[in-house]
C-alpha cells in the first residue's frame, strides 16, 4: 500500500513540474510582441491553431478612423483570413452607423 502511495505521489509531482514549465513557456512566448507600422503580430504559442494577432485600421462609413485587433487561424491572404478580416472591419464599422448588429 505504501509503495503504491509513493509511486502515485511521484507521478503527481512529476506532472505538476511538467505543467509549471508549460506555463512558463506560454508566458515567455506571449511576451514576445513585435510591432510594425502596418502589422502587429503576436505569436501566441499555446493556442491550438497557432493563431496570429493582427491590427487593422480603416476609414469608417461615418468618415472617422476605426481600428481593431484580432486573431486569425488562417494564413494571410487566404479566403478564411479575408473573411475574418472583413468580419472584424464590419464589427468595427457597425458601431459607427449604430445599426449593424443584426
Amino acid at each position, binding site marked *: 500500500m505504501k509503495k503504491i502511495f509513493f509511486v502515485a505521489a511521484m507521478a503527481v509531482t512529476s506532472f505538476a513540474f511538467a505543467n509549471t514549465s508549460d506555463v512558463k513557456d506560454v508566458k515567455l512566448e506571449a511576451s514576445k510582441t513585435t510591432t510594425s507600422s502596418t502589422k502587429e503580430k503576436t505569436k501566441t504559442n499555446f493556442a491550438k491553431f497557432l493563431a496570429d494577432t493582427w491590427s*487593422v*485600421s480603416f476609414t469608417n462609413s461615418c468618415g472617422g478612423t*476605426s481600428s481593431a485587433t484580432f486573431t486569425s487561424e488562417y494564413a494571410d491572404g487566404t*479566403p*478564411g483570413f*479575408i*473573411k475574418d*478580416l*472583413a468580419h472584424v472591419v464590419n464589427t468595427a464599422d457597425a458601431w459607427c452607423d449604430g445599426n449593424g448588429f443584426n
Partner: protein
Amino acid sequence: MKKLLLIGLFVSNFFYTSAQSKAVIQVDYETKMITDSLDKNKVSYMPYTLLSNNEESFYYNKDAERFFNSLFGNKKGKNSDVIQTSLGAIPKYPKYKGSVHKLKEKLSVSLPIGKYIFNFEEPALKWEVLNETKEIKGFKCRLAKTVTDTKDTFFAWYTEDIPIQDGPFRFKGLSGLILEIYNLSKTIEIYATEVKKSDQLIETINYGNDFIILKSKDEYLKARKNYLENPSAYNGNNIKVFDAGGNNITRKINEAISKNNIFLD
C-alpha cells in the same frame, strides 16, 4: 477507354445540369425591422431577393452572394465593392448574410450568429386564411395569419394570381405568392418591391468555413441566447475595437448587440 471517359463525362455533366433548377420568377423584397423594441428609431432596411419555381427557391441578399462567391464560390471573381484598410483592400462584408433554401417541403435556413453561419431545418407554418382582401401592385390579394413556433403572430397578403407557394424568408406554403407580411407589433414588415419573370439558376451560397449545420432549430435558439449574453464568444478572433481616440469600445459594442430582441424567426 477514351470513349468510356467521354461517355462518363457526358453522363455526369447531364446529371449535374439537371440537378440545378431554374427560377421562373424573381421577387425583390425589402424588410423593415426594428431590432430593439425599446428603441423604435433603430430601424434596419434589408434588401433580399427570392428566386423561385414550384419545386425549389432561394431567398438571399445579393451583397452576401457576391461576397461569399468571391471567396469560396465556383464563380470566383473580383468583388467591386471593396473597403481600403491598413492591411490592404478587402471585399466589403455583407450586412445581411442569412438565406433560406426551399426544396419541395424542406426549408433549410442559414442565419448568422457572430462570425458563424448556422444552418438548421425550419418547421413549416400553419396558416389560417382570413376574409380580408386588397390589391397590391395590381394583384388581388387575400390575408392569412400564422403563429410561429417562437410565438410571434404574422399576417401575410398573398395573391393566387401568381400560383407559386412561396414568399420571403420562412413564410411560404400559402396557395399563392406572398407580397406583404408583418408581425402583430409591426416591428417586422416585409414588402415586395419588384416582381418579374426569371430564368436564373437557383444556386445556394457557399459560406466556406465557419458554416455550422445544426440538428435542430432549438440548438440555434440556444446558441443565439448565449451569443446575446456573451457576444465575444461567438465573434471569435478575440476582437478588440478602438475608436479614433484609441479608446477600447469593444464592451460598448457587445452591450449594443445584447439589446437586440426582435428576430425574424
